[in-house]
């Protein structure tokens, strides 16, 4: 039995941020964000409102371009517009109101299969509908195939949005407060659902949340965004960055508790590091 002596190679970063800045005019939203996201990690992102969490995700979807710095996927700049390798679920408006649940899920498959019409016929249509139905079943919506989103509860709509995003097998799934509008019981169901899908589909997930417990329960890594420095006269002159970055080791729940308190300080009572210039 030969013993493997060398360490397995560390997986290369799936996403990397190199000195990224985002500015609107003279308002700095993000400053000097430098991060690597490993494949198959579940990254929870927390931070006070307005800290730039959504902006951070928008850099990955391609809705936003860095003012300075680069965002790389697999080492190549690939995020200048949304694409199927980066799935998204927003807090609201994530599903198409004019399509039934099944058609919402089939949307991505139809687009892939029919560049001209975006819809398929005959055997290919049947195959797509079967695949979409299987995906609906995976999120527990097997009984709601023909229902329109307006007839669904908030939780059902988010399940649908997740199924819709997963059907194209994205490398990264971006969730922006996906469970923010759901009540606690439904949230627990959704946690189980998303953890199961994350493991089964070997996904990389980045999820923004306001719930610190949720962040630590689901994530393998927790990022907190906030301003590192503040100028009381011109608060907009400094942007936020990842002020806290914690790789969760599931073996030490006690450590996690103190970590949660640390993050609570960041998100709740914002620390004020006034910089004397």
């Amino acid at each position, binding site marked *: 039995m030969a013993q493997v002596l060398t360490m397995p190679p560390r997986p290369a970063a799936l996403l990397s941020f190199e000195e990224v800045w985002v500015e609107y005019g003279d308002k700095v939203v993000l400053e000097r964000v430098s991060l690597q996201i490993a494949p198959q990690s579940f990254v929870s992102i927390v931070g006070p409102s307005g800290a730039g969490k959504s902006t951070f995700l928008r850099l990955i979807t391609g809705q936003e371009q860095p003012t300075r710095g680069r965002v790389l996927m697999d080492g190549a700049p690939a995020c200048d517009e949304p694409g199927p390798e980066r799935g998204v679920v*927003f807090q609201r408006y*994530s599903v198409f*109101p004019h399509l039934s649940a099944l058609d919402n899920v089939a949307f*991505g498959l139809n687009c892939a299969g029919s560049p001209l019409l975006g819809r398929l016929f005959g055997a290919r249509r049947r195959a797509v509908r079967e695949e979409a139905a299987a995906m609906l079943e995976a999120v527990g919506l097997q009984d709601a195939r023909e229902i329109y989103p307006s007839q669904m509860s908030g939780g059902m709509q988010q399940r649908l949005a997740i199924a819709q995003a997963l059907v194209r097998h994205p490398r990264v799934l971006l969730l922006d407060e996906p469970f923010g509008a759901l009540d606690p019981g439904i949230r627990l169901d959704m946690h189980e659902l998303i953890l199961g899908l994350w493991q089964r589909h070997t996904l990389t997930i980045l999820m923004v949340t306001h719930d610190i417990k949720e962040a630590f329960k689901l994530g393998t890594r927790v990022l907190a965004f906030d301003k590192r420095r503040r100028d009381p006269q011109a608060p907009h002159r400094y942007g936020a960055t990842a002020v806290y970055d914690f790789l969760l080791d599931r073996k030490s729940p006690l450590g996690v508790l103190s970590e949660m308190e640390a993050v609570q300080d960041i998100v709740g009572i914002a620390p004020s590091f006034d910089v004397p210039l």
Partner: protein
Amino acid sequence: MRRLLNVRPRGGGRLLLGLLPLLAVALLYLGASTARHIENPRDKILPTPAAMVVAMIDMAKVDPMTGRVPLFEDTGASLRRLTVALVIATSITLVFGLALGLLPIVRAGFGPLVAAIAVIPPIAVLPILFIVFGLGETAKITLIVFGVTPFMVRDLAAHVTAIPEEQIVKAQSLGASTWQTALQVALPQALPRLIDSVRLSLGPAWVFLISAEAIAADVGLGYRIFLVRRYLAMDIILPYVAWISLLAVIMDLLLVQVSRRAFRWAHPLRDR
């Protein structure tokens, strides 16, 4: 006592409530007409219902001079003009409204032009149309198209622009191209609005149709009204106006039905 806000008439009560004002108007007219006829039995300004029925029966008879039925001829000609114009306006709206609403580059290029066209009073253009297209059907149809299209295009573009950005991003993150997004996301959501926009444009469309017919035509509902005006033939004008209104109401109801049937998702079960 419930708030007035929350009192919702239903079923028969609702029908009755809608009929009452109509009945009141009819009664009011009847009273005024009777009063005038007591003073002057040959009054032409407020003809009695009986006189109007007689006049309309005449209009619905074959005219021995031409061998045609004026009422049907007029109705056919007017509806043809209106329909052709609305089909053209709707097609233009579909293409331009979608493009303007969905593509920032088209909005930047053509937005100002559409806004400029929209403020031109269409009737002021009518002489130009008559000069360019002659006095035939083309000028009349063009007037209606010119009159309603800018509004419809802007309405639809605004509606498409208002589709949440999340949906557009979502479509792209599912691999949709610009074309697929237009066809499968923007178009289906634009269609119910397009029907509403046609409904709103029906009123102006009739105005432009009747104006054009009044000025240059030899058949049509507007033409007839302005022709018999010379003889103070209120017994024809009033039923014609009622007939035009009825046609407009029927077209409106048809469009609502089409929208309800074709776009079930856009009509939630409970309508306020």
